[in-house]
């Protein structure tokens, strides 16, 4: 299995762990992740306004290069994943946007959203299979009570993201089970942590992150895992005094596969 691997800027700077363990685990699982040489930042935030064209272009370039290599794009960062999926959806379903972007980029072959964009977790679930991963686990994380934090960007809007059930997702819990640990289900796992305003509005970010943290704790979690560097930062920085440890899901995967 070979995929185009889109790391995104954060995985090259503050979230090197997320990146490193994703690669190591992939190797252990027999997946080749090929990082394009010339990738650009996806823009970090999906431009919701319909008349924002330029801010969509860098994501389109990534999608086009994956199409030209005839491969699906795998991302780990929730934010990059969100941007790529939604821009891809625009290119597929919004004729006006597709026309404008194509005219601007003057591509040899018009791009119409052909690339498959999947998250690393989706790859684990749909392409490899959690049963298969379970077999490859060397050091099961037995007895650990782990809370999955989904946040917003993986799940919503579910019609476009098509990642999992937006209200009762199961993918990370299934992942946790595959690693031999015990998933903790808590109501705020799909509520916003406030990461969006982590720079501009500390008090709101603290309030939102605190709620998530408290909900996970109340339900008996010892540890929170996430796929998003921003959630990771925000839960850690603004999660309150007696916060739980927060780690990337790839780190646990590497640990269980014993490639850490």
């Amino acid at each position, binding site marked *: 299995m070979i995929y185009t691997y889109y790391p995104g800027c954060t995985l090259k700077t503050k979230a090197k762990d997320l990146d490193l363990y994703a690669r190591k685990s992939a190797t252990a699982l027999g997946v080749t992740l090929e990082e394009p040489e010339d990738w650009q930042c996806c823009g970090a935030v999906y431009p919701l306004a319909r008349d924002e064209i330029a801010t969509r272009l860098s994501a389109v370039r990534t999608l086009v290069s994956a199409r030209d290599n005839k491969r699906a794009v795998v991302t780990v960062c929730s934010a990059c994943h969100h941007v790529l999926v939604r821009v891809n959806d625009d290119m597929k379903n919004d004729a006006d946007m597709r026309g404008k972007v194509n005219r601007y980029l003057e591509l040899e072959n018009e791009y119409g959203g052909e690339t498959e964009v999947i998250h690393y977790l989706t790859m684990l679930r749909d392409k490899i299979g959690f049963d298969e991963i379970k077999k490859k686990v060397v050091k099961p994380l037995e007895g650990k009570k782990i809370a999955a934090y989904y946040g917003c960007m993986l799940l919503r809007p579910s019609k476009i993201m098509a990642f999992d059930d937006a209200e009762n997702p199961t993918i990370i819990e299934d992942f946790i089970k595959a690693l031999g640990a015990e998933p903790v289900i808590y109501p705020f796992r799909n509520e916003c942590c406030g990461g*969006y305003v982590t720079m501009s509005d500390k008090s709101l970010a603290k309030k*939102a992150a605190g709620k998530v943290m408290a909900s996970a704790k109340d339900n008996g979690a010892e540890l929170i895992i996430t796929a998003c560097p921003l959630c990771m930062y925000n839960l850690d920085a603004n999660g309150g005094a007696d916060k739980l440890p927060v780690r990337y899901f790839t780190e646990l995967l590497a640990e269980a596969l014993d490639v850490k």
Partner: protein
Amino acid sequence: MVHKSLEQACLIMDRSGVDTRKCMMCGKCSATCPAFDEMDYHPHQFVKMVTEGDIESLLSSKSLWKCLSCFACVERCPRGVEPANVVEALRVTLLRRQGENYITADDIPGLLDDKLPQQAIVSAFRKYKK
């Protein structure tokens, strides 16, 4: 209904891709919103006020910058109205005016800490200034 600026309302509808008139005032968005308590105008009011053309009040509101873009309102709205998109269209409308940047490049160094992920900084440039 006060038609302060229907032209402005149409602009916001075009920009957000949302027909706010589909709203039936059920309040699902406000019931869902994690930032509700921080807002002076609440999500359902955003939708209503855009329909009525009362754009300027929204542009000068505190709420404009409280929305977390978590899409919970988008996910649960029974009418396919996307309040988060409306908020974003309003933000963009304001930012495109001269001198209306919410955060300037000079502000950013003061907001950094050494763990802050790159994406937060990149998106700050996208979200708060033009």
